[in-house]
């Protein structure tokens, strides 16, 4: 075959190999109908739950409309708490599905460099979840914009209409999309390490929900703050806050950074196990 190349120093990655790997992973992801449905669920759940929560809050329940102190962008984006379950599924199944069906052997036969496989999976999962997340987040803001004034959250009461162009709201919106992407990457890492999708989904959901459930039971405000600073979901969702930032346990970007740390650790651990063990 390539007789001329014999004896030439071995390239780390042949030319075009990275593009080929990325292309293959993208084809793999988009040719599964289940992935599309999960992405639709991600956008749909985020927007629908956000709208339901937003619609249930009314200034009539507060002493005065301004006294509600409601963080309306955060309220409108609260559907992400449920929508993230779909992001977990996409991340875990991108690799776990290969183990349950056995296609991982074909994947590693075609691309023996396992780090490249995982990196390509991370890229396509991040891209797909970012796209679906953006749709869900914009739909949530649109729903909030139309629902909030009816419940008394008007500009006159100190609640300007939601706009993705408004500084803090834009940060909350973009941060929410990033939150979903990071949750998906965390799931990809855990899925790679555990291989078994059911186990991986359970592990990620437990990791995300453990602290929010525990802090609900703990009476100590100090401990609540401490836990909210280091737990992936409460810290990551700090990026949605648009008012009273100084009272948050952790700043918006620092909080998202905590989640990014979890995602990076999971991917590194998954990558290390992936590279070391038998396929």
């Amino acid at each position, binding site marked *: *075959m390539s007789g001329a190349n014999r004896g030439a120093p071995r390239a780390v990655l042949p030319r075009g*190999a990275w593009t080929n790997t990325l*292309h293959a*992973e993208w084809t793999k992801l988009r*040719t599964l*109908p289940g992935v599309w449905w999960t992405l639709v669920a991600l956008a749909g759940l985020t927007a629908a739950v956000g709208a339901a929560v937003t619609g249930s809050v009314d200034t009539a329940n507060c002493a005065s409309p301004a006294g509600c102190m409601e963080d309306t962008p955060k309220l409108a984006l609260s559907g992400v708490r449920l929508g993230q379950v779909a992001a977990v599924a996409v991340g875990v199944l991108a690799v776990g599905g290969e183990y349950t069906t056995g296609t991982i052997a074909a994947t*590693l*036969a075609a691309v023996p460099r396992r780090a490249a496989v995982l990196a390509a999976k991370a890229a396509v999962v991040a891209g797909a979840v970012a796209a679906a997340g953006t749709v869900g987040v914009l739909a949530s803001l649109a729903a909030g914009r139309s629902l909030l004034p009816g419940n008394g959250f008007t500009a006159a009461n100190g609640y300007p209409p939601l706009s993705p162009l408004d500084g803090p709201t834009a940060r909350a919106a973009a941060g929410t999309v990033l939150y979903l992407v990071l949750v998906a990457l965390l799931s990809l890492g855990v899925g790679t390490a555990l291989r078994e999708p059911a186990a991986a989904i359970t592990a990620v959901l437990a990791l995300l929900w453990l602290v929010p459930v525990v802090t609900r039971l703990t009476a100590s405000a100090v401990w609540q703050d401490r836990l909210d600073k280091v737990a992936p979901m409460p810290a990551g969702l700090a990026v949605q806050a648009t008012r009273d930032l100084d009272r948050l346990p952790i700043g918006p970007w620092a909080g998202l950074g905590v989640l990014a740390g979890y995602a990076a650790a999971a991917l590194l651990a998954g990558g290390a196990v992936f590279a070391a063990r*038998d396929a």
Partner: protein
Amino acid sequence: MEATIEVRGLRKRYGAAVAVDDLSFTAGPGQVTGFVGPNGAGKSTTMRMIMGLDRPDGGTALVGGKPYRSLRTPLCGLGAMLDASAVHPARRARDHLRWLAHAGGLPARRVDEVIELTGLGGAARRRAGGFSLGMRQRLGIAAALLGDPPVLMFDEPVNGLDPEGITWIRGLLRSLAAEGRAVLVSSHLMSELEGGADRLVVIGRGRLIADTSVGDLLKAASRGRVEVRTTARQDVMTVLARAGATVTATGGDAVTVAGIPSEQIIALLTQAGAAFSGIAEHRASLEEAYMELTGDAVEFRAVTGREAR
């Protein structure tokens, strides 16, 4: 690239169980090399190590002189079907081939070519979950052929296939070897390889039992044995057993004799007046040769109470 698979001193253990134990063999160009052994003998593990899926505890496996994982274009170096059912059931067959082609940087027309070559045809547009075993085998083989590789490896490709499918795969393996490729094909049934393989690598409990040509193996297994056709089987067996031969009843009116040459058999039977209608050198079947070789290497043998008769 040379069309070879070279396995040298390969070892693999899973906990306390030794799966592959100091295994060495070569599959060369232009030949179908049968890789035979009982279930659990280590065939699949060896193939997985050749492809770099599992890491050996010792030894090397080279494809065209290089470890698989260092091949620049692996799909163009070795094509393999290890498990035909390893496709995502929700993905269309054509899409399965397409992502593989993308990973290997292969042109899209190659996908259509292997679909044509393996007779998948219109089924390629269907989801692989609805495929029969035969169609899955064709899809697996199409995937193996994508990169037009000089070395091919198939793990139990005819297992569970109907006679038509078996004939097709046999013909395909022969034609791939005739093109100068090295073809390594595993089976736990020697009969599946009869007439299909040029060389045989026989393993049991992870160890090499025989690495030989089909002709030599049969000659070795047949050596010295004589088949006597007779209607007076009991008489013939008594006479010959008394003379020190090992006598086995085979078939309705046949007896297989080992230990004494045919001239002496004729003399003994004539002398004793035992009637026989024919006498010939016994020609062993591959299955027989295999049973003889792997007799000690079968890990789990069914206990048949009346076997001794």
